[in-house]
């Protein structure tokens, strides 16, 4: 029998839920067993109460898990009805989630220098990875892309981990005017990276993967798909790979970029 998902049902209570940038929220929940089980790059699938006609859960990556405090912090964008309802859940509100789900970042042993590239709400799982790499003493350079300055998140947190951070905005309102894939490709061209990780818009990850392949660096990407169950039963979150269709909830969300056909 293939291995079932690591996800279990966890009740949680909201500790805090505040807007940290325009439309981007930080949600801290208390869920002790989950907090000690989550690994960087995995996801949770949250039941957001309040609308009987909206049935499916909301799959979200997480930023950090504190096993001692029993809390998990998630950053999410309020972009649809479900995430807008989630943003209304105040401290003390309760619900349940399924997690931890999927395969997280698999950084090769012996990695010494990493380039992390994240766009928009792709930042949290990459920031989570940066924390793990910092603990392992890996040198980390970061390229971040956002639409505009009001939507920028994570820059201070990356710098606090000792990472070198390049910020780009589409409108030039902060950092370099343009896409973060340009500085990422430049850095990769200079060489020295043995690991690259990326999460953000599909077109961004595709460019990063191509630049990493050219530079000969192993690259992982965290992909987003519409998901019905999140634990390997429904076959809806498919990712086309060189080895056939793979479910993002079980074989991902983090994939070896060289195996991905459709990002």
């Amino acid at each position: 029998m293939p291995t079932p998902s690591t996800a279990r049902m966890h009740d949680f209570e909201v500790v805090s839920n505040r807007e940290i940038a325009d439309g981007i929220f930080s949600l801290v929940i208390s869920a002790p067993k989950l907090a000690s089980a989550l690994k960087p790059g995995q996801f949770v699938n949250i039941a957001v109460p309040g609308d009987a006609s909206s049935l499916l859960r909301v799959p979200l990556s997480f930023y950090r898990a504190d096993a001692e405090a029993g809390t998990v912090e998630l950053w999410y964008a309020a972009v649809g009805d479900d995430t807008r309802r989630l943003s209304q859940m105040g401290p003390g509100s309760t619900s349940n989630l399924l997690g931890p789900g999927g395969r997280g970042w698999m950084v090769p042993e012996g990695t010494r220098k990493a380039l992390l590239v994240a766009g928009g709400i792709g930042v949290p799982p990459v920031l989570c990875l940066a924390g793990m790499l910092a603990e392992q003493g890996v040198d980390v350079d970061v390229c971040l892309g956002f639409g505009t300055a009001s939507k920028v998140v994570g820059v201070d947190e990356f710098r606090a981990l000792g990472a070198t951070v390049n910020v780009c905005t589409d409108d030039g309102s902060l950092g370099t005017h343009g896409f973060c894939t340009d500085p990422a490709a430049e850095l990769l061209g200079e060489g020295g990276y043995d690991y690259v990780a990326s999460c953000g818009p599909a077109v961004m990850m595709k460019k990063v993967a191509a630049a990493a392949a050219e530079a000969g660096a192993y690259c992982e990407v965290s992909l987003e798909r519409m998901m019905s169950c999140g634990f390997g039963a429904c076959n809806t979150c498919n990712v086309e790979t060189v080895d056939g269709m793979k479910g993002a909830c079980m074989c991902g969300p983090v994939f070896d970029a060289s195996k991905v056909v459709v990002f």
Partner: protein
Amino acid sequence: MGTVNMAVDFGGVKMQNPINTAAGTFGYGWQFQNFFDVSQLGAITTKGCAAEPWPGNPAPRMAEIPGGMINSVGLQNPGVAAFARESGPWLEQLSKDGCQVICQVAGHSVDEFVRALEMYVELCPWAAGYEINVSCPNIAAGGAAMGSTPEGASSVMAACRKVTDKPLFVKMAPVNVAEIAKALEAAGADGLSVINSIQGMAIDVHTRKSRVAKPKGGLSGPLCHHIAVRMVWEVAQAVDIPINGVGGVMTGEDAAEFILAGATCVSVGMANFVDPCASLKIAHELEAWAESQGVKDINELVGAFEC
């Protein structure tokens, strides 16, 4: 609890209670084993498999809509041989533990259905029965047409009947159900699963594209429930073989509606995605409802709808 007999006989499949799972929403069963004891269900129906592996459709395969979802999975499956090898041992143990296993058969043509069923009979002898999916609207090459006419549906059923004496069921397309049900009964079906997902469309008006990879997809979830109840009732008036009610069951009362309309057993579908423990909760709620009706046997309530 425990005073009502909940055991039912679905066309030769002896179920300890009337709760089954809808193919495609319950994987191969083992995906749920860490959430609850699957052996407490009456039966599970495994995701359809064909003689050869099918890759399924590109992404996106699903969009959420009010009261349900629309899917365009395209029956991705590893083929019967890989299914039997990977999931067979767990499913065989499940059937020994008291939960019957019904395997769904997929195919693009009569020959493909027959070949897949022959493989199941050889490789999955632990299966209590087989459900022939003549109706999956995702099947491109004529599959939908086969299930949507009495001649097409019964030609598949008649060919499969020659393969095995084991219980054979048909997952019916939600069209012309009474007439097609009669044809399937005549062709030797032991029972009918009513209904499969309903074809629908969801368009992103900003991009003007379908919200799933193909123009059309299959609607499922509570939004289908009352259409399914009506169709179960129509089929129950038309045939004598037992019915498995499928469509938007979220609670024990939803399941009870199917029983009253004439279903012998009930499959839980989308609810499995919302809460992986939903099917067992629904089994308990159904039993509580049967108790509340003052009967000794759930079978007394099958078709007990009063107009």
